[in-house]
């Protein structure tokens, strides 16, 4: 096991720079998720760590070794690929043993480790099968097992769940997390799926267009997004935004004004004149006058209704912005209906309207 450190790492293809100075520390034994939309540089960063892509500038360390020019096999890493990359002509046993054999591990040791990995992944029955005879989920477990038997310094996983169906994905997510907690091997996991990131990562690094936007625990990212991008990327449904003029309200708090919106928020103070306001859907509710802590109401037109059974998300068009509102249970609403919603205290996040970076608000006890 080892810590991993990216120091000002850059990657260019010709004149095109795709990773712009990545600085990231991953602690020994940590489960770090790199998340971002496609083209964000997360896979490139992982491949540079693996040694599958050269590093244009900067430094990558595994433990105390700088690995920039080291061949992949010398880095003592194991990687799980999106398409599993199992050797089709070899049996499951041979697939699992391949890396150990290349490292001249004694035969009985190989046998022991392969069987133990197969046991923990429930693969014992399939050891003599070839990859072509396995289901997607089984092939995926073999790919995990191949990394596990090696007992490397670092596990690298490149979207390992994206070829599985939704149910199996949820199940395997738990399994990977369990295995990682058992072996405590430093893991770098790449995904574009923020749900995977939130459920699996000890910490999450959000990347966008080759830059690191924010690193933190899932709670930090969710509660205190560093900028509009992170706020909009983390959470499902995502945070919705509108630009507003902020002014101090009579009797404390702040008045936010935008087209169709006139919202007095208690307990928030000291905002600049122009802000981008972010609302988590679960903190915007259909207006209930009896709920005294709720700010509002804001009126708008329903654009969509997403009924999930236990809860319903309602899209409400207010002026130029579309705000997603949460409702417990079913909501008897149709697109085109007029509704009023309110916002729960402490639910709003404020960002600089120009740069999109978060503004730390002074929360006044109300």
């Amino acid at each position, binding site marked *: 096991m080892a810590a991993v450190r990216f120091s000002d790492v850059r990657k260019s293809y010709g004149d095109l720079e795709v990773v712009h100075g990545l600085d990231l520390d991953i602690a020994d034994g940590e489960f770090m998720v790199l998340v971002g939309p496609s083209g964000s540089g997360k896979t490139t960063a992982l491949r540079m760590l693996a040694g599958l892509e050269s590093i244009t500038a900067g430094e990558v360390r595994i433990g105390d070794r700088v690995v920039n020019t080291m061949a992949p096999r010398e880095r003592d890493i194991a990687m799980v690929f*999106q398409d599993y990359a199992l050797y089709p*002509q070899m049996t499951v046993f041979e697939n699992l043993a391949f890396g150990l054999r290349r490292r001249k591990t004694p035969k009985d040791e190989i046998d022991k480790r392969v069987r133990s990995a197969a046991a923990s992944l429930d693969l014992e029955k399939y050891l003599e099968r070839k990859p072509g005879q396995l289901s997607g989920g089984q092939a995926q477990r073999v790919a995990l097992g191949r990394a596990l038997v090696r007992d490397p310094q670092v596990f690298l996983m490149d979207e390992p769940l994206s070829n599985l169906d939704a149910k199996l994905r949820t199940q395997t997510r738990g399994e990977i997390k369990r295995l990682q907690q058992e072996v405590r091997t430093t893991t770098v996991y790449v995904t574009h799926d923020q749900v995977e990131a939130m459920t699996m990562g000890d910490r999450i690094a959000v990347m966008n267009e080759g830059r690191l936007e924010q690193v933190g625990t899932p709670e930090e990212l969710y509660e205190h997004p560093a900028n509009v991008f992170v706020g909009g990327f983390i959470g499902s449904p995502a945070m919705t935004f509108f630009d507003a003029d902020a002014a101090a309200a009579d009797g404390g708090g702040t008045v936010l004004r935008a087209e169709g919106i006139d919202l007095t928020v208690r307990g928030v103070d000291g905002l600049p004149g122009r802000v981008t306001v972010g609302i988590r859907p679960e903190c915007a509710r259909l207006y209930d006058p009896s709920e005294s802590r709720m700010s509002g109401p804001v009126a708008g037109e329903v654009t969509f209704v997403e009924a999930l059974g236990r809860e319903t998300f309602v899209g409400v068009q207010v002026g130029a912005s579309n705000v997603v509102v949460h409702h417990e249970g079913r909501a008897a609403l149709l697109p085109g209906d007029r509704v009023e919603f309110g916002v729960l205290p402490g639910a709003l996040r404020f960002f600089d309207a120009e740069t999109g970076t978060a503004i730390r608000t002074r929360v006044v006890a109300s």
Partner: protein
Amino acid sequence: MTSRREQSLTYAVLGVFSLIALLPIVGIVFTALQEPGGGASFGSFDGLHFDNFRRAWEDGSFGQYLKSSAIVTGSVVVISTVVSILAGYAFGMMRFRFSTPLFYLFLLGLMVPMEAMIVPLYYDLRDLELTDTYWALILPQAGTSIAFGTFWMRAFFRSVPPSLVEAARIDGASSWFTLWRVLLPLAKPAVLTMVVLLFMWTWNEFLLALVMVSDESLRTAPLGLSFFLGRNSSDLTLLAAGAVIVALPVVVLYVFLQRHFIRGMVSGAVKG
């Protein structure tokens, strides 16, 4: 889902084309089995006379010609296959400077026909004192075969998911090991198809043998057949028997390896 009518039409068209392809071959074989000099009309049938093959074999010294052909073809196929796999691996899998212009250089060997090269080639090989040796037949054909083989194997290696090679690299396999133990087992159908094609082209090459070789003991089978035809132009059954003898090795090899053509290239390597 194709309808019954479409299906019958497909079979009808395929049937007609198979007939067109098969008729001359069946005709030659039947002619070769007819009574010698028996007023033979092409393709007619009056019992089997296997003795024709023995006569042709002895009169035409096909034993010697087949031996020459086997030496030349075997060498060309072995050399070209090994070199093509290595070159195809490099062009298909590795990133190196000037790989594209170099690859075009290889393709040149595919584009220029033997007829265009044969005269300068003759003088070059004569200067090297290689004419009238097997080398004069092996080297030029290995050259053109490697051009095709590299093109062919490169296409195969390009089709292999890169993650397979990357997984092997991370697992600690060298390039050499990855090629022979991870990729080549997958390449078996591609390699065997290439072997059959190279074998067929080399075996049937006529012009090069005609120009480079005057020593009768070095004549290859097609060249020998042509001389044999010149000597026995009146005996149709004998000619047909000689033709069958010369064509047989290619047919045998094809029948032997044809199931590999049909088998899928990479089954279950990665999930699509």
